[in-house]
């Protein structure tokens, strides 16, 4: 086991590239402040640098552990892509899937779980960047959609933690259509007046940003996460100039009004729990009754007798 392992700064990596993670080894050098950190200290600090608060990328399971109280029940764990396009680039997509399944222990780039956040039942979907860049294909689309439909049935809030390079190229237009499918389900969740909190982590780009990641009642970002639609390199190629410092980072998005708050990972659970308490999941009529006002719907309109 190496004592030091170089980490790359978490930044946009094209789908398929290996994710930068907390490296294995006893000691870790923070890519931001160069502090040498004892790996165990980093773990107990939710993989945030104790000196400069650099957020190391964490995996989908660690994310669930961070948000949920104790145990959770995983849903649709075994959904697996059948490679609908029979896609091959420099190697077959099937081989890429297999490699990712082996390295992550997941069947695709997301875990969906039911659990509780500070005692409040919730359904959490957590994306796994280590699985083909966290890309969204049909399995991710289907699992998120089922999560939302389950939440509507059970009247529970939905939390989605995004960590993704966008739609998965190897499933072509079917990946693209997952954006519409998920947003359609979110429309129903929205009209059912159930909470949806979107947590954006490094990186959240492409079709994930242009669909569910931007539609939270609250969009909460981790500090300095790369969040955008087009990747920085694509933009640079289009406009032929270098991008300003901090462009497409969480703080920039908050300044531009696209993200509601930027929250340190160590505060994340408390903030989410508070938001859920504020929002509640009562049916609209029940909520209105609790507040001591008449329910807004249904309104019975009495026609004037003269018009009858």
């Amino acid at each position: 086991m190496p004592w030091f392992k170089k980490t790359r700064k978490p930044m946009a990596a094209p789908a398929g590239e290996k994710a930068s993670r907390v490296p294995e080894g006893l000691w870790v050098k923070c890519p931001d402040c160069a502090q040498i950190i004892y790996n165990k200290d980093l773990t107990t600090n939710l993989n945030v640098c104790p000196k400069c608060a650099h957020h190391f990328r964490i995996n989908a399971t660690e994310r669930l552990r961070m948000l949920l109280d104790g145990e959770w029940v995983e849903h649709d764990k075994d959904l697996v892509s059948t490679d609908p396009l029979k896609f091959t680039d420099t190697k077959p997509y099937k081989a890429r899937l297999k490699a990712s399944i082996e390295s992550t222990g997941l069947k695709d780039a997301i875990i969906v779980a039911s659990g509780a956040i500070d005692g409040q039942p919730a359904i959490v979907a957590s994306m796994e960047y280590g699985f083909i860049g966290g890309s969204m294909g049909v399995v991710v689309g289907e699992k998120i959609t089922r999560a939302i439909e389950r939440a509507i049935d059970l009247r529970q809030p939905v939390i989605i933690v995004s960590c993704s390079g966008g739609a998965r190229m190897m499933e072509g237009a079917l990946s693209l259509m997952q954006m519409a499918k998920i947003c359609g389900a979110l429309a129903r969740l929205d009209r059912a007046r159930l909470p949806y909190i979107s947590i954006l982590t490094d990186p959240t780009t492409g079709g994930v940003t242009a669909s569910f990641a931007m539609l939270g009642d609250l969009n909460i970002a981790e500090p300095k996460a790369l969040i955008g639609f087009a990747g920085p390199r694509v933009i640079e190629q289009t406009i032929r100039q270098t991008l300003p410092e901090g462009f497409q980072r969480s703080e920039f998005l908050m300044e531009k009004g696209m993200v509601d708050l930027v929250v340190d990972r160590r505060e994340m659970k408390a903030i989410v729990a508070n938001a859920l308490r504020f929002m509640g999941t009562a049916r609209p009529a029940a909520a209105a009754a609790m507040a001591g006002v008449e329910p807004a719907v249904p309104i019975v309109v009495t026609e004037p007798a003269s018009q009858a």
Partner: protein
Amino acid sequence: MPAETLEFEEPIAVLLKEIDALTLLPRTDARDREIESLRRRIESVREELYRSLTPWQRVLVSRHPNRPGLHDYLDRLFRGFAEVHGDRRFADDHAIMAGFAEYRGQPVVVVGHVKGSDTKEKIFRNFGYARPEGYRKALRVMRIAEKFRRPIVVFVDTPAAYPGIESEERGVAEAIAVNLREMMLIDAPIVVIVSGEGGSGGALGIAVGDRVLMQEFAIYSVIPPEGCAAILWRDASKKVEAADALKLTAPDLLQAGAIDEIVREPIGGAHTNADAAARLLDEALARALTEISAVDSEVRLEKRYAKFRAMGRVGIDFVDESTA
């Protein structure tokens, strides 16, 4: 090679040159007959070529500079188009047009991308790359349609949403996302026509509807083949391979269940005969509008959701949760 022929149309270009040469000579009956026979040869060569286009060739056809766009269909199929500008937030985006028109005597809302035909218009239209304001304008005008119970006809033809600084700053991702959510609930019949390039999120951002029609030689893709090649092959010149792999042609999309119907084009593609392309589209559009307008709105919305909800099922091995 004449500007309007594509690289794979070389045999046609050669014949066109022969005709050009003949027309420069003094006219005789024999020469006229020769020109006429060359024209017929072009038709048969074209028919042959277009019967078996490769995916990459279809990409080229979908981007053909003479391919009929929104204006061409507005001129031929709609009457009295009244454009509505701006998103009432920031600006009027010129890559997406929206407005009211009459279709077969019925008031409808028309929304669509415009790439522009000459250099000046292309620049004005930003080559069909819409900024956030375009998507917000589209939704605003669709809301008007909903309010006044008018059907919506959408034309999709864009390389992508504009990947620029201001586009990101003003939230192009949010604009598209909101459209995807809200279009699923808009209580008006929506027919979408993918008429040229269906460029990923930039296309989908106005393309949620009750019927999604796709013209025969249009494409619809999660990423342009060049971009896919650059990322997966690390070599942008592998665009031909990428176009194959992405399954972005109309027959592929139909098979995947991502579109509802293919609209035939004249032999040689819509760009060879805009009138014929419009007639073929007219028939399909009228039928789709009639069918979805006949359904109660509650049923229509349920079906719209179910349609998109089912997309991708072909790509999943379903495992019953109770056994998992």
